[in-house]
């Protein structure tokens, strides 16, 4: 019983980290209907950058995660401005072309990481102790990182809903044409959106590498995981993403404990394909009329 309760708490905490890892993708998809296939590689890049900062000067991930966020902010802005805006997001073949372009980008980012950091699994040893409440023991690192991840995700959510700029982003998400005719500079807003989405990936990477080791080749899996999460939540739906993140956290922790590591690495793909088949519009989503 204690084990089970512990697993539930662990699952819910992991959900926070997953949420941050996926929320950037969700934001970008919501505004531009673009799925950035390099998202997972952004997370890995951010994580390994935090690892280097730790190696160099012992900088804790608590300090480095804003730094990795800023680096990824710049990379994201450059990608949107230099690549996606060149494609023209309003054209008929835009979906295909952005898909292919970000597919290429994922190889560029992953192999740049490989050049910089090699292919070793890396991790930051961070807060190795446990928080104990009676018989239940929770790793301190997970608790801190999860709370931080929730905080960042909520911060972005508040920004979207309660600031003028955030509202403009949502306006562009609902109708680019409508937003443009209200005088919004939609290119600027799209660049900002992609930058913030990427920054969220960067900060998620720094937190994630403090919890589990990963390598440059982990990007693809992280992209699928993030995409699964937002698809399960209903693409562009923030409440759904939260629910999906918690659910995914629980499933992963349970499978890992009861079925082992090998099953845990397969489970994300199996959940992914089942979601696409049985709930392609997400948990809360509704089929749109053709």
């Amino acid at each position, binding site marked *: 019983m204690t084990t089970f309760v512990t697993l539930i708490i662990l699952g819910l905490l992991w959900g926070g980290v997953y949420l941050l890892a996926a929320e950037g993708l969700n934001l970008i998809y919501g505004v531009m209907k673009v*799925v950035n*296939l390099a998202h997972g590689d952004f997370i890995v890049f951010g994580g390994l950058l935090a690892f280097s900062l730790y190696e160099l000067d012992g900088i804790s991930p608590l300090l480095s995660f804003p730094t990795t966020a800023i680096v990824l902010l710049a990379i994201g802005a450059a990608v949107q401005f230099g*690549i996606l805006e*060149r*494609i023209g997001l309003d054209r008929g*073949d835009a*979906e*295909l*072309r*952005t*898909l*292919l*372009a970000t*597919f*290429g*980008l*994922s*190889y*560029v980012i*992953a*192999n*740049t990481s*490989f*050049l910089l950091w090699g292919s070793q699994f890396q991790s930051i040893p961070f807060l190795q102790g446990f928080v104990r409440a009676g018989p239940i023991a929770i790793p301190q690192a997970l608790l801190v990182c999860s709370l931080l991840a929730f905080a960042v995700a909520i911060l972005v959510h508040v920004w979207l809903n309660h600031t003028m700029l955030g509202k403009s982003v949502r306006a562009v998400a609902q109708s680019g044409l409508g937003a443009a005719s209200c005088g919004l500079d939609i290119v600027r807003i799209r660049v900002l959106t992609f930058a913030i989405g990427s920054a969220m990936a960067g900060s998620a990477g720094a937190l994630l590498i403090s919890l589990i080791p990963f390598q440059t*080749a982990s990007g*693809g*899996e992280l*992209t*699928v995981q993030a*995409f699964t999460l937002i*698809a399960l939540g209903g693409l562009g739906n923030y409440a759904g993403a939260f629910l999906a993140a918690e659910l995914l956290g629980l499933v992963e922790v349970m499978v890992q404990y009861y079925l082992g590591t*090998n099953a845990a*690495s*397969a489970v994300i*793909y*199996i959940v*992914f*394909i089942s979601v*696409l*088949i049985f709930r*392609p519009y997400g948990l809360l989503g509704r089929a749109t*009329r*053709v």
Partner: protein
Amino acid sequence: MKNVRLGEIILFLALLAAGIAIARFGSGYQAQTLFQMAMMTLLAIGWNIISGFTGYVSFGQVAFFGLGAYVAAVSILNFDLPWYVAAAIAALGAGALALPLGMIMLRLNGIFFALGMFGLARILQLVANSLEVTGGPMGTTVPVVDSPQLTATVAVLAVAAGVLMSFFLSRSRLGLTLMATRDDAVAAEAAGVNTWKSKVAAFCISGCVAAVAGSLYVWNVGYLDPNSAFAGTVELQTVLMVLAGGIGTVWGPVVGGILISLLSTFLWARFPMEQQIILGVLIMFIAIVAPGGLLGEMVKRGWLKRPPIWGPPPAVTPLSGEGSLASEPGQTVLLTCNKLSVRFGGVRAVEDVDVEVRSGEMLAIIGPNGAGKSSLFNLISAFNRPTTGDVQLLGQSIIGRKRYQLARGGIARTFQTSRLFASLTVWETVLVAASSVCPRRADAVARTAQILDDVGLLQNWSDMPDVLPPGRQRLLEIARALALDPRVLLLDEAMAGMTTQEIARVHEALRAAIDRGVAVVAIEHVLPAIAPLAARVQVLDFGKTIAQGIPYDVLNNPIVIEAYMGAEGVSA
């Protein structure tokens, strides 16, 4: 056109001869390089079938490559089979597995399909990791005694077979339906195409080709492990080759295969660490600057043209009493709707509407915007399922039938905003519909030519739809519907935006159809556009029938005037 065809044959034979010459007489290194090139080109050809011709971009083609490699390895290791038997088993095995997988994966589209395939490849990789027979994650050696010269020769021949297969596929009934589905799946269904069957078939063929490449890989390398069988770099190069050469073309994968192989071999020798970065940048560059690739650019500049499928049109023979309908006009009731209703959430779009149409008559359905006219059509043509009520064709209920079944079985429709196939010519557009109801190719060709002549589009046969003026585009849609030889023809504001001349042309074609016993149901805003043909008019407002009768009576009915003009209109 003849010259293009001849050029293709010369190019094909020259490449084949050069390939075999290098394979047989070149050094082991040259043969090995050639093998790599040929194997990747074969993969590219396979990817192009599902992602190019069919439009379903996959990031997991390597799933079938790895599957083929593993099936071949197991066949060689456990049953001591020769390589060609192993290759055949790999192809068949992959094809058999692709059928259920395709039926699952093809329910997805766009990014979902692309990433779903990526996930599939990862799942198979995990399965391979736990396979004892093949050494799990460490891999296994597969005994190979053959020289690189032999494997290269076989790989070149396999590419040649792949090119021929693509060529014949692109000019086959299946290829035609695939391209129509890629351009507009809804319109393809309305033209009688079973898009589902076509897509799954393409998926299986594509998987088979990739599996053959995988089996050749094992035979050549003599070693297999999960990481190289499901390698991301193989996926990257496959996609890049097709993109660089020209996606959705027969020669694109070959041109791209040769160019990108040479480039990546060079990069591998000079910049092994940066190779994938450079290839990734190249994909982005092509996606931004020239998504059609090299051949696509040449087509855009008019240097190349895809030869017409089953064209050019034959001479049209004067009408020889053709037409399958022999019923006397006005006698048989063809279409009946009983108390048809549909609700979308709280909106009652259509409510208790009865419709009856007899052979050889035209019924006009009019009504103000939002009256439920198009919704009614969507119910009749199986595009939506009615909440209650029934639709019958010749006394048989058609509820629950598939769209393409109805299109083949006698109910053809056009769309309110025209839906044409962007990459098919006028000729091919009509051919899609004609070939879905004519089992023999010659019949489909003859019917297409006949119908294009009837509506006056024959001189435009080789045009792409986007160069036609709007009126002619609508004419083309009517021609596509008529090519299905329907018993009931549903026209959704088909004559909007036409010139008087074009309307006259459509009237002529419709009158001929009506005389043959076809029942035409037409939605129109402008009654004069169809008044000369319509025997009866039915008026809808807020989803209900508010009046029906002969045109003159209906137009002077105060209720109708009120629906259009508001209450003041009546007194004025």
